[in-house]
């Protein structure tokens, strides 16, 4: 007996659009069933930070780095919103879909590879982060922040940043054997990065070594870029910051693919 002749077709390549579309459609259709809770948590949380710090501290601090404190925090919490709407959903969502819903088994039985699956998931989360990231800015505008043309770049900054953090979350889920491991990552990695990002206080008052380390915090670059989008660009420095975000995104993207391949393919 001979083996069936395959219906020869174009050899399917990597990162095909139709595969990415399939995974994205699944996410979009699912989003229709949970968008309320997701939008609520992704927008209310940073807004509470903004109001609590902006008005709580704002009453004590007044001006900081040449800005009204509420303006300082209003632009800074964009990064917080991005982090909360990318790293966290990526960590938990990936783990749930892998472990409990076994969604990835179903998707990988279709003509979709792990690389495409991870990429599409990250693109989707980045897009949500790009939208949710704008919420603190809109709230700040409602409380007196002057709109500026540069702010139109904020969704893009939030998107690039969100892509990296989504891949970070997927990597964490990929390497974790259980939910409990997430605690280590949140306490030891995300909380310090979140606090020392220049969101609530400027890094230039910190000791030199802390300022130096701040340059390796992608969240810090996101904070600075958003602030400059609102108050005025800083030319090459900002391009460099965007470059850092892009490199961060690309590196963790590859890590996420590797982590999930290990997890999904025996």
């Amino acid at each position, binding site marked *: 007996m001979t083996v069936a002749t395959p219906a020869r077709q174009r050899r399917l390549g990597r990162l095909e659009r139709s595969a990415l579309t399939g995974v994205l459609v699944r996410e979009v259709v699912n989003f229709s069933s949970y968008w309320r809770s997701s939008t609520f948590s992704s927008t209310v949380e940073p807004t509470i930070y903004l109001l609590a710090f902006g008005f709580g501290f704002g009453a004590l601090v007044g001006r900081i780095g040449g800005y009204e404190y509420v303006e300082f925090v209003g632009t800074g919490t964009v990064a917080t919103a991005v982090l909360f709407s990318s790293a966290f959903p990526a960590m938990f969502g990936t783990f749930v879909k892998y472990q409990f819903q076994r969604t990835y088994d179903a998707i990988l*039985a279709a003509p979709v590879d792990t690389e495409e699956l991870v990429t599409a998931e990250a693109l989707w989360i980045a897009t949500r982060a790009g939208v949710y990231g704008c919420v603190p800015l809109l709230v700040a505008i409602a409380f007196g922040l002057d709109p500026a043309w540069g702010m139109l770049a904020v969704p893009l900054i939030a998107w690039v940043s969100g892509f990296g953090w989504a891949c970070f979350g997927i990597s964490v889920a990929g390497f974790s054997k259980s939910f409990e491991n997430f605690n280590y990552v949140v306490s030891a990695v995300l909380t310090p990065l979140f606090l020392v990002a220049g969101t609530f206080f400027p890094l230039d008052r910190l000791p030199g070594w802390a300022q130096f380390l701040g340059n390796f915090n992608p969240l810090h670059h996101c904070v600075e870029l958003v602030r400059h989008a609102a108050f005025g660009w800083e030319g090459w420095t900002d391009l460099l910051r965007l470059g850092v975000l892009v490199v961060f995104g690309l590196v963790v993207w590859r890590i996420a693919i590797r982590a999930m391949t290990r997890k999904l393919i025996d």
Partner: protein
Amino acid sequence: MSDLAIRLRGVVKRYGPITAVDGLDLDVPLGTCVGLLGPNGAGKSTTMRLLTAQAIADEGELELLGFRLPEESKQARAQLGVTPQLDNLDVTLTVEQNLLVFAYLYRIGRGERRDAVERALELAKLVDRRDSRVDKLSGGMRRRLLIARALVHRPRLVLLDEPTVGLDPQVRQELWALVDALRSEGTTILMSTHYIEEAQRLADTVLIMSHGKAVAAGTPAELVREHAGDEVLEVYGPPSRLAEVEAEAAGEGLRTRRTGTSVSVLGVESGNGFAPEGERRPANLEDVFVLLTGEEIA
């Protein structure tokens, strides 16, 4: 000349010290339904995962619809439908949404997507439940949807991994009808199961697996004739009596198997008058199964 939809040669898959699949050869001719029968842990599910390249073989050759695995797996998967053992439907979505998502994942063109979803709804007999959320469906409906989801793109080959495990007998028969209809349309099917009756009813040929190897292959009738003979004598009694019968049968060169409360003496028609008191019945696939795998099953 018939063509093969699946061809495995000497396939080995190890997980650490455990060899889940141990030199497996498997042929599935196009247009047939092959049943993989084996006890839990025989390597059936690992074989299924190898066929979708969710597991990569350590040794051996795998071809699926003429594509080499794992290199050309994505092309193969485009023409393959898979029903997993564990339900992985999107439970907060409706029946129709679940099918639509897979119409995209299986790259059905825009113009044909609607029709494909309708056809799958009819196949699953869920047309009037199209707007129900999956978590509101009964177990049988969910399983029908799971199968229909794998057929939305009219695959040439379908893998059914334990399609009726954990279902009521009535529901199981419904699903058998669905699989039978598929078979009569000429779709090639590889089905793993540990229900003897399922394999006997649906499969053209059966491959019995044990400890990662194929221990026998053939049509259910051939297997029964070859390994268990025509008739079986079922002898009931206290354990001491059963041991006695076993010894006597062995003396006559007959094979026996224990079934808990009785001893079954296989191939009694060739037993030269060996006839302890008991019930005669035709030999069946279960006799073969237990004989070859040494294990009782559900």
